[in-house]
């Protein structure tokens, strides 16, 4: 069954308290290479049948209106994952 993956991140100018706390904790465990962490969300929308352009458009709309809060978050990626086709990602990632 194909799935559409939606990635949502806090807007760059918005404070990300989670990322801030994690970046503070990393060096205490010896992970010193990372100067920043931002924590986002990944959604997987399962589709019964083929992903048409119309369905993908619906996913983009859902991502922009419901899965993300446009006041504080950006949808950074909407793409199709079709595990039945191959290991490869079907359809190039699209920035929204």
């Amino acid at each position: 069954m194909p799935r559409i993956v939606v990635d949502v991140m806090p807007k760059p100018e918005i404070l990300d308290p989670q990322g801030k706390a994690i970046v503070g904790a990393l060096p205490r465990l010896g992970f010193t290479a990372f100067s920043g962490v931002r924590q986002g969300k990944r959604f997987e929308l399962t589709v019964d049948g083929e992903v048409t352009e119309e369905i993908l458009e619906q996913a983009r709309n859902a991502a922009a209106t419901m899965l993300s809060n446009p006041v504080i978050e950006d949808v950074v990626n909407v793409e199709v994952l079709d595990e039945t086709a191959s290991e490869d990602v079907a359809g190039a990632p699209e920035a929204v």
Partner: protein
Amino acid sequence: MSETTVQKFNIDTVEHAAGTPDVELPWAELGLKQNEFEEIVKLLDRRPTAAELAMYSVMWSEHCSYKSSKVHLRQFGEKLTDEMKKDMMVGIGENAGVTDLGDGWAVTFKVESHNHPSFVEPYQGAATGIGGIVRDIISMGARPVAVMDPLRFGAIDHPDTARLVHGIVSGIGGYGNSLGLPNIGGEVVFDSVYQANPLVNALAVGVLRHEDLRLANASGVGNRVVLFGARTGGDGIGGASVLASESFDDSKPSKRPAVQVGDPFAEKVLIECCLELFKHSLVEGIQDLGAAGISCATSELASNGEGGMRVELTNVLLRDPTLTPGEILMSESQERMMAVVTPENVAEFEKVMEKWNVEFSWLGEVTDSGRLVITWEGATIVDVDPRTVAHEGPVYNRPFNRPEWLDQVQADGFRASHAGADLPAAGDQLRAAVLELMASPNMCDKSWVTKQYDHYVGGNTALASPDDAGVIRVDEETGLGVAISTDANGRYAYLDPYTGAQLALAESYRNVATSGAVPMAVTDCLNFGSPEDPEVMWQFAEAVRGLADACQTLGIPVTGGNVSLYNQTGTTAIHPTPVVGVLGKFDDVDRRTPSGWQQNADGQAIYLLGTTRDELDGSEFANLRGHLGGLPPKLDLEAEKTLGAILINASRDGMIDSAHDLSEGGLAAALSEMVLRFGVGARIALDDLCARDGVDAFTALFSESQARAVVAVPRSEEVRFNDMATARQFPVVRLGVVDVLATALEVQGLFDLPIAELREAHEGTLPKHFG
């Protein structure tokens, strides 16, 4: 080097401003009026720099300067009597008022609004509202010990209401619960007048030892100025000015501000870190950063202290390195504090920061120049008299007049209206009316909301919602404690703002006294429409005058609060909504009185204190029928004082085991709530009450006459209780008895209402609408 950077970022220095008088500045976009801009030019004797313009524009906004309300708010000071000043350690003007509790203890509390931000982004708006008021409390040198949230939403079935309710309630819980502050009360009201203008007010209370009291002033020339807590980002730039000064308008998306995001974990750490600073006396003055951020903190600290401060702005730790100086000065990034530290304490101060892993940066020092000088890599970008920024902004005596429509509204009493026809009279009709009332959005059970708040943390919560007041123990040795209640009735204030504001105070006072505490101090959050509308301005002026007069009569001072204007959509303003919080004191919180009959109260006598009149205008019953007109119930502050004294003494002397004040929904609501509180039934007869006061059963149940309360008196105390009421010439009538075995509220000759049925109606409403 410095010149290169200044040039690279095109920094507008004072020198540059002096040499380029004709540069066009975006003062109008920043919300300044022409006369205000001209005043700034006159004060500086040159055009302001971009950074100065940013500072003046936010600090002279309605939200920060109180320019429209100041002339009226003065009454709170002018009408103070010596009696009211007796226990007031800090009054209006500081971050929060402070009241002496005795034994070296003091309490500080304040209510504030975060209305517009909560409409734009409900979760973060409500969360940062809690954050801001809690930092005000910390700034006084106190440990915050509790919060409360008076909330007002649009109609319960309006499509946008669920979004706001879910977001705002979880924002308050998400932030407040993470701070370890019990949420002990508040209000949840639904009325279509608040559609698109929800009222999200937040109250915080803190306790301190007298010696820990801190004020926001920068004293001691040579003392260092430090900024600590979260880094500065682009949060809410322009928010203070734009959001609070103008109605939110979708047609101007460019004015939509960057939303402030709260980090409750950072705030919790900041609380503990500040308390450790106070304990070791490491700060001379302290100020939280809220609206107008560094602009506000630097100008207020300097203006309240020796009058001078020098700050190097590039020392501010940034989350976003692209911010301009003006944006840094206006940023409303949360969880930040500014303090003044003597050079000797610098090392100790840094040790505390390191212990709590809090970032800090030394910005500058206190001077005696009388100027607030802010530099950018050494080049002066702000050179102002801080008083002109913080305290001597514009003051408007805005025109006001009594609305023309008011006579007509006041003439439209409930009884004579269409809505007042066919009132319930027979037992089954009254029974149905009680059920309908108790299931209505404003009278229904609010635990869907309050269950999302931690009210146990701290282990000092003696009473919390749904009791009349929240009660917090301050001293475990002695049981010393405080009670707080917040109240408002926008419907009453709409019918008569002078009396309406007084009725809000009277109810809050009554709630505190009903819990058994002695009322001591008042805080208010005055939520109104646009001050540029003379009719709204009249409502505001009347409400303030009413509140100040009533405080004088009751002998308790307003110690702090907040004004929120422009709560309107287009030309339609919200009901005038003065939210009043009263704080009272317990010598021992063990003497508190809960608001329902208890399991061990079988056979206790139920009494009604006070007189019931035919007062249904503006009532919740009238609201059920969609009617709003006439005059609010009669105010009698002397009766409120006597009732308060009876309730406090009866509680102290063990004469009553439970008490509940009568307010919205009248006796019907009070009896229902007392039954539901612990699930204990009662047998009631209304005949004596109806005969004495000359009212019918409907009026007895639904009238909202003031200065009334229901109490439960143990049999052994009945004589003493009656003697006390008689000695004070206060009307009292016996209504019936508590019956632990009865599984109902029985009103003799009229109806039996099983507790289970009442509970189902009462508790079903919010889950039905909000899941």
